[in-house]
């Protein structure tokens, strides 16, 4: 006979405001098998948990139902408490009378009746709960970091410094990401290259970091502690082991007019190239789409001049498999290219701003390259159209961001600060120039941030105009900016030499495809979702996968670095044990009933289903059945739902438990 203890929580007033908790306890106490039903103000607090523990021991309870919040909130808390009182943690269930009841109803009478039903269902369910022993799996103490921007670099360095091997994968030919493109950084105006490149060198020299550049993630299999990752190393056409990085190939390459993506396509590069001189690794890549040799079969100059004979036109893409225990995703962001209306996306584009049509309408990242000492103009602010210095420059903020009607409702967070920085950089370089900024409002929370913004106005003479721009058009060699100043209530028209648009921060293209490979969730903009917005901000809901940087949402550098170190700390927490204990909520196959149709195998998203042979004592094959590897199983229950013969049961969610709940209604 069960002796069930039911503990009803007030959750301060969250539950008791709408539900008569005393009555719930009294009604549920009458159910057969319930030995004790009581209520308490905060069940999850220390005295609340002690009440539960004491009751288990004194009343010799066999099962526990905690009627409180969602199991996502406190199931772990209460199962731990139950365990410390000597019961198997899986004999404890949560009845969610907060999210599913008190928060969504107003009528006290009806909500109380519903709460009684919910708790009653869980009482019937818990009667069918079985003791589930914990499952342990080994942990591979190597990690994968996807993305070699500042987030990936920081996470990789932190993990590697703790003595664990890191595989760092970068899609571009060099690590460095967007931070390597920046000129100076707010709020201190220190040079981005000066603080970034030493870190890139540290990565290259670190004995515990294995670097794959010009490589992509092809396939991810396995589970926390035991991932198998297939990496596609794109053909570089240059042997990394032979190349000395002397650069003669680049000097001799006849194809010199290819827009360099690193310089936002305003600088030019050769067909065999490193994206920038400080690239890590300093090994060139042949851009096969633009190389004369690949296009016509004739040329091969780079091969002829290469001393060590590193140029290899025959090189093929190669697949490499790496075993890792944890994955840090740091794929970063991209700027919203506003002329585009991406297919299947809610984003509508900004044709009216002439971006892509008027050459001197550029985005913020292009301005960074113009202002950068290592950029295509050597740090001079010059117009892309005619190379003249702009004397009147207009910055427009919130392009794309915070514009629900245009498809993006979020704030890109970094634009207010970098536009303030741009006005300063402009003022430092063009002393007789004037900068105007159209803005909705300045968002400058952060250490020394507001002071920085004030400085751009008070000391660097930027004119801030509160209001938005309706239209831009070319007039002679000027760009006419038509906007409104809502503070004064007048229309403004400025004849500018150059316009810089603070376009929205978006996730990298293909972020959704990578997420599908990793089995992690993302929002409608394809930013990756954390497990809990407040309490688990660097972990994915998928165990063993962590997030760092702007792939999760717009972030500035300090925030990205903090999150990367936090993700590294999470990886280290995982690696601190040799064995990983995981929840025993896994599927089991009943051999006697299984007819080996393997429908389960087809639908299993974790690849956990294997074929198992059953043999008699003489070793003759009796039958083949499906087998679920408990280490791999994610406990999603898809196999259970699919199995036509109902031969699969998910521990903790058996048909018996579910039917018991339905029948209790």
């Amino acid at each position, binding site marked *: 006979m069960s002796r069930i203890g039911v503990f009803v929580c007030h959750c301060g007033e969250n539950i008791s405001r709408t539900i008569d908790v005393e009555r719930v306890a009294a009604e549920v106490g009458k159910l057969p098998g319930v030995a004790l039903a009581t209520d308490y103000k905060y069940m999850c607090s220390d005295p609340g948990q002690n009440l539960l523990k004491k009751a288990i021991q004194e009343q010799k309870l066999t099962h526990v139902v905690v009627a409180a919040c969602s199991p996502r909130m406190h199931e772990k808390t209460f199962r731990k408490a139950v365990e410390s009182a000597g019961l198997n943690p899986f004999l404890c269930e949560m009845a969610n009378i907060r999210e599913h009841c008190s928060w969504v109803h107003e009528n006290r009478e009806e909500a109380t009746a519903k709460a009684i039903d919910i708790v009653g269902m869980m009482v019937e369910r818990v009667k069918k709960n079985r003791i589930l022993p914990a499952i342990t799996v080994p942990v591979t103490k190597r990690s994968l970091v996807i993305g070699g921007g500042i987030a990936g670099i920081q996470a990789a360095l932190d993990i590697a410094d703790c003595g664990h091997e890191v595989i760092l994968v970068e899609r571009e030919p060099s690590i460095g990401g967007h931070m390597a493109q920046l000129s100076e950084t707010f709020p201190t105006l220190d040079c981005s290259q000066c603080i970034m490149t030493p870190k890139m060198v540290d990565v290259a020299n670190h004995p515990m970091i294995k670097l794959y550049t010009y490589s992509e993630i092809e396939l991810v299999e396995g589970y926390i502690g035991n991932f198998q990752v297939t990496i596609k190393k794109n053909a570089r056409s240059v042997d990394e082991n032979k190349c000395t990085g002397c650069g003669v190939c680049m000097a001799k390459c006849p194809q010199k007019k290819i827009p360099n993506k690193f310089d936002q396509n305003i600088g030019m590069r050769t067909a065999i190239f490193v994206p920038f001189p400080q690239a890590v690794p300093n090994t060139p890549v042949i851009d096969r789409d633009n190389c004369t040799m690949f296009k016509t079969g004739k040329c091969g100059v780079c091969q002829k001049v290469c001393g060590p004979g590193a140029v290899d036109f025959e090189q093929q893409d190669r697949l490499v498999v790496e075993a890792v225990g944890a994955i840090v995703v740091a794929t970063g962001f991209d700027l919203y290219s506003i002329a585009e209306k991406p297919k299947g996306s809610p984003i509508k584009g900004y044709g009216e701003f002439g971006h892509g049509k008027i050459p001197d309408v550029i985005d913020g990242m292009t301005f960074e390259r113009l202002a950068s000492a290592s950029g295509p103009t050597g740090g001079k602010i010059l117009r892309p159209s005619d190379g003249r210095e702009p004397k009147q420059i207009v910055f427009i903020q919130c392009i794309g961001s915070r514009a629900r009607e245009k498809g993006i409702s979020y704030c890109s967070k970094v634009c207010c600060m970098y536009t303030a920085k741009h006005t300063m950089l402009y003022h430092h370089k063009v002393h007789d120039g004037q900068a105007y900024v159209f803005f909705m409002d300045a968002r400058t929370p952060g250490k020394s941030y507001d002071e920085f913004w004030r400085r751009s106005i008070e000391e660097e003479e930027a004119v801030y105009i509160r209001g938005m721009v309706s239209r831009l058009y070319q007039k002679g060699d000027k760009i006419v900016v038509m906007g409104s100043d809502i503070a004064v209530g007048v229309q403004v028209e400025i004849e500018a030499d150059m316009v810089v648009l603070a376009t929205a921060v978006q996730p990298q293209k293909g972020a959704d495809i990578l997420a599908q490979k990793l089995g992690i969730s993302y929002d409608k903009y394809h930013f990756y979702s954390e497990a809990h917005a407040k309490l688990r901000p660097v972990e994915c809901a998928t165990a063993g996968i962590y997030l760092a940087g702007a792939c999760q949402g717009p972030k500035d550098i300090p925030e990205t670095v903090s999150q990367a170190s936090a993700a590294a700390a999470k990886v280290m927490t995982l690696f601190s044990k040799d064995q990983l204990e995981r929840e025993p909520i896994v599927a089991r196959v009943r051999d*006697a*009933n299984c*007819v080996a*149709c*393997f429908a389960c195998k087809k*639908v299993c998203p974790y690849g956990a289903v294997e074929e198992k042979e059953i043999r008699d004592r003489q070793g003759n094959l009796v039958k083949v059945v499906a087998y679920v590897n408990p280490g791999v199983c994610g406990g999603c229950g898809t196999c259970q739902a699919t199995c*036509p013969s109902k031969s699969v049961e998910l521990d903790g969610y058996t048909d*018996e438990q579910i039917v018991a709940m339905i029948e209790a209604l």
Partner: protein
Amino acid sequence: MMQVIDTSIHAAVAEAIRREAQRLLSTGEVSAIVGYASARRTGAVQPIVINDADSAAQLVFTSASVNNLAVYLTTAKKEIPKTGKIGIVVKGCDLKALVGLMGEFQLKRENLYLIGVPCVGVLASTVQPAVELTSETIAPKCRECDAHLPTGCDFVPDVALPPMVPLETKYATEIARLEALTPAGRWAYWQEQFAKCIKCYACRQVCPFCFCEQCLCDRNKPQMVETTPRPSGNTAWHIVRAMHLAGRCAGCAECERACPMDIPLNLLNRKMAKELKELFEYEAGLEVNESGPLATFTDKDDQSFIK
């Protein structure tokens, strides 16, 4: 207007089956053959399993060879010892079931010797086996048949099919009629049909795809489907059945033939097949397919139902 269907090829087909069976069993190429033999009633035909060359003479093929013999090769049927290769006589419609079973890992192609039969149609379950095959007596499934000549078999008698007379469709017409009804009207129709069910499970026993060793309807812990023939349990059973067959059933219509209460079971199956075709461009039984549309997700799948 009633039209007589030319069944003259059946004699030559039967003769060719007998010769091939004799050869297979005398050379030991197969250990047993599942085929058709004459039954007691005039014109009637029943399934038979033979395992010696002499018995090959018993094999026949007529328009009364209605059974889908694939059912005898499934796990649920233990009658045939699973030793060596087994020969089986298959009509085009039956072959689709075998193909489905291969995709579900129940049979291996290399363990089968397929004797395909060119077939002009078989008799409906509602007529006597000795009657002439006409546009009136032909089984409804044969009216919509697209597999008169099975493909991919090990042996097919070299007999040319006579030209086929186009016949009026039954299932397609009936589906169109039901689709035009309101949901309430369709519900009423099926409630009336299911109310006839006596839970004899003949439909389950005769279906090649009901190969579970223990049907979930026979479980009692927990009981998924009420066992007594009452409306709620009947509806549950038939919905479970239809759902389990969606994307698998290729329309041999054995369930409908075996049903003593004349419930139009294949109509339900055809409706499910139609849905699958419209949603996923998928037709069961055309090729060995290890992941049907309901077990896979592709980005081409219709998402419009997610709102």
